[in-house]
């Protein structure tokens, strides 16, 4: 019997219809945990640097995390790991909801798809019974509708369904996969699912998830429960953080109508302009009314005490579940001020199955190209199948028109469906300059800020997620003005890995030459902080946590000092805190090596040129180099042999050397190793 995980993968060859239940190697969980960690190992072993997103050899892995389905709060994320058609690097869009634990209760840690189905199919997993079924009756149907249809067809409301909408079927590269109240959205997991012709996966499980030491697990969880109740009753002071960050999870956008912070600080249109005086009394009044009338109930994902999602029930539309940022992202893109419009619009986008970060920016990009004559009125003309695009002043009409063309792959929509970067290359005529808000070819958060922030520079530049979404989190977003506020903050802060981190907060000033941005946190300190936050996210993504319970929140219940306790009690492993951290670093380095093997270079670790108004090229280079060295990487950002060896990834170093990505070096001497060990103790404590 395995503990924590089930010990079985479901391997499905879509071209032959072969289905196998395969026992996994227990060492994989020990070395890479579950979720994204062990999936990376599978990708390292089973793909080549030449494998492209739409090649049959590209795998599509649906995975839960090591702690999914255990009684721990918030370990409910589903990760869809595949090679991205947007960036050509590995991606792992993730979704909350109920799918991942249901998969575990059905007896599987992962579903691994390979090859492509000749016809549109859906997969029905009912414990040990697994079938590939014809899905022709679901073709073209909305992602929300398909979930309901399959529950009815299979006659069990507890079935969990992951489904794509028409966007993914029609090859939109930033298509999402919808699951109950979650969406696996970013970087094109839905597009790969559509390419493999899987319309949906339905899963139902009634088996058990076992714990190695149940009483110890519950004891640790009891401590977390007490803390969560305390935090719910005592949100963080608004003197320290914005109201939108005062609690656990990310319920704010669905809970609160007041949103001066996003609407005035984020950039509207195609991440172009800020509207610093947007939030007025009239807006506040109308948004409050609209939100009150639309949000029927706040809802949770599986086994989670936060309630970040909302059930939207309006008089003039079908009910749906909405999350966080989508409420405002289409408003930003279209430049429309009316929240009522957004509720109606996002209802349609969830059914189409689209990433609500990328989609509004792609459409706003088309609006910009039209305005500047790069796309002409010919591109916006009608045909026998659809009417012409409304004039630019009808912002709503234009957005609806663009959305429909995009999803159906009609006219200019076929090109826009490639995403900003690839569309701009196809359109040419200078359109590339309009694709300005990208890192590694992926649309980023629509923010355009003033002063370079060293922490955010590193997170944006180097995130293996190719997007900053929820990488930042545990560290305050800005320095506190008053010294006593800093003292208060560190008083109740056991989450940091080392005491020295608290001093960094005390020294951090909002303004000044030396101790303020962009020079503080200094490159070495910034590297340490970013490395720690990344580590938390590696844990979330491998253990299966929603980062709303750990990595994304200030002062969360789960953190580097208690992850290992839960892992040990669940799995029977006997890791100490630092061994546990070492596994996280092993995963992170394999991730980096995988992308480097696919051709990623230092030049790709590069935030958009207009991301900050004030840039410091020399400092940025220093930040990057210092961070690379801190991680044990070369100047080019490739993990060194000594770093890989000590993470038991010698085989990765061999391959990187063989491919010429890593320069062949003689093995480290005993003195060099000793030196390295000392440094490692300081950095990570092991």
């Amino acid at each position, binding site marked *: 019997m395995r503990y924590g995980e089930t010990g079985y993968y479901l391997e499905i060859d879509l071209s032959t219809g072969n289905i196998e239940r395969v026992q996994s190697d227990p060492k994989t969980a020990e070395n890479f945990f579950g979720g994204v960690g062990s999936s990376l190992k599978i990708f390292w072993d089973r793909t080549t640097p030449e494998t492209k997103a739409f090649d049959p050899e590209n795998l599509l892995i649906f995975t839960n995390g090591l702690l999914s*389905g*255990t*009684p721990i*709060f918030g370990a409910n994320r589903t990760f869809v790991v595949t090679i991205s058609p947007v960036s050509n690097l590995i991606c792992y869009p993730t979704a909350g909801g*109920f799918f991942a634990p249901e998969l575990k*209760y059905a007896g599987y840690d992962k579903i691994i798809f390979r090859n492509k189905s000749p016809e549109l199919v859906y997969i029905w997993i009912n414990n040990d019974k697994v079938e590939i079924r014809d899905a022709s009756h679901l073709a073209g149907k909305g992602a*929300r509708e398909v979930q*309901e249809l399959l529950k009815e067809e299979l006659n069990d*409301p*507890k079935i969990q369904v992951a489904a794509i909408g028409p966007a993914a079927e029609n090859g939109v590269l930033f298509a999402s996969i919808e699951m*109950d*109240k979650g969406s696996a959205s970013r970087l094109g997991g839905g597009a790969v699912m559509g390419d493999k012709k899987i319309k949906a996966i339905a899963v139902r*499980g*009634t*088996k*058990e*998830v*076992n*714990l190695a030491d*149940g*009483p110890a*697990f*519950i004891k640790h969880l009891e401590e977390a*429960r007490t803390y*969560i*109740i305390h935090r*719910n009753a005592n949100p963080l002071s608004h003197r320290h953080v914005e109201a939108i960050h005062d609690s656990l999870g990310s319920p704010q956008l669905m809970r609160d109508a007041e949103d001066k912070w996003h609407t005035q600080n984020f950039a509207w249109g195609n991440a172009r302009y800020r509207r610093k005086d947007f939030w007025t009394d009239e807006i506040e009044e109308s948004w409050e009314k609209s939100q009150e009338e639309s949000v*029927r*109930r*706040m*809802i*949770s*994902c*599986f*086994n*989670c*005490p936060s*309630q970040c999602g909302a*059930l939207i*029930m309006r008089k003039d539309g*079908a*009910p*749906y*579940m909405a999350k966080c940022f989508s409420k405002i992202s289409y408003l930003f893109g279209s430049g429309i001020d009316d929240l009522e419009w957004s509720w109606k619009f996002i209802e349609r986008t969830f059914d189409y199955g689209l990433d609500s970060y990328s989609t509004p920016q792609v459409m706003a990009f088309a609006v910009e190209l039209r305005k500047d004559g790069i796309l002409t009125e010919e591109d916006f003309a009608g045909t026998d199948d659809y009417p012409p695009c409304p004039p630019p002043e009808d912002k709503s009409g234009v957005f609806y028109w663009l959305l429909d063309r995009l999803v159906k792959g009609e006219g200019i929509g076929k090109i826009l469906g490639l995403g900003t970067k690839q569309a701009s290359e196809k359109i040419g005529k200078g359109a590339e300059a309009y694709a300005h808000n990208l890192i590694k070819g992926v649309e980023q958060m629509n923010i355009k800020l003033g002063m370079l922030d060293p922490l955010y520079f590193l997170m944006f530049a180097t995130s293996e997620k190719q997007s900053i979404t929820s990488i930042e989190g545990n560290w305050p977003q800005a320095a506190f003005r008053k010294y006593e506020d800093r003292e208060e903050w560190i008083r109740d802060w056991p989450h940091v890995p080392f005491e020295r981190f608290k001093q960094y907060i005390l020294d951090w000033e909002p303004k000044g030459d030396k101790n303020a941005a962009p020079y503080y946190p200094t490159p070495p300190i910034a590297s340490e902080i970013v490395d720690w936050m990344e580590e938390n996210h590696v844990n979330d993504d491998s253990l299966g946590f929603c980062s709303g319970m750990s990595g994304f929140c200030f002062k969360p219940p789960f953190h580097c000092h208690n992850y290992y306790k839960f892992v040990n009690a669940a799995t029977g492993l006997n890791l100490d805190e630092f061994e546990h951290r070492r596994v996280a670093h092993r995963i992170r380095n394999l991730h980096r090596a995988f992308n480097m093997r696919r051709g990623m270079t230092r030049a790709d670790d590069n935030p958009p040129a207009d991301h900050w108004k004030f840039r410091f090229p020399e400092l940025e280079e220093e930040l990057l180099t210092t961070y690379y060295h801190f991680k044990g990487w070369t100047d080019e950002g490739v993990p060194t042999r000594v770093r890989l060896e000590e993470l038991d990834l010698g085989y990765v170093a061999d391959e990187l050397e063989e491919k010429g990505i890593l320069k062949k070096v003689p093995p480290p001497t005993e003195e060099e190793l000793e030196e390295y060990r000392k440094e490692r103790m300081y950095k990570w404590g092991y």
Partner: protein
Amino acid sequence: MAKIKKIVKRITVDAEKCNGCRTCEVMCSAFHSTPQWSSNSPAKSRVQVVRLPLRDIFLPVFAGEYTPAECGGRISYHIDDRTYDECEFCRAACPSRGRFVEPDSGLPLGCDMCQSDPPLEEPMCVHWCVRDALKYEEREIEVEEQVEIDALETALTAIADKFGWDKMMRTAARLTQKS
């Protein structure tokens, strides 16, 4: 017969506060696993959240009595603008549906308020519902004192129900003579 005081235990549900997270299912099944806390499976829980989100139905239902027969009625109820199928909030384990039936053995499951020695302050589903959708109540009531029926009497009544009093008496008489 004399009146005596008795404690009635009850779990009340505030369906408006339920957010459908199903923690109660996880914790119920973990508490009742053998050994305790060694495993969990929501399908084996004695509380099941009827979660039909797009119909705004979020309703924890606790396992009640086992009923050997399917019920005849299939009535829809309209409560607070929502339509419930009768089955949705029926507490019984019955032959017509899998709810409150152990998925492997088919044996019915019943809520025992997390009976424990020493007794817990509150059942586990209530304890772990940090949103307070579930509340535990104890109420003292006065009831007629009843003679406790012992196990033998229960068994004999069951046999008599099955075979008839005559046949049982005759068999008992014959067995007595033999011994």
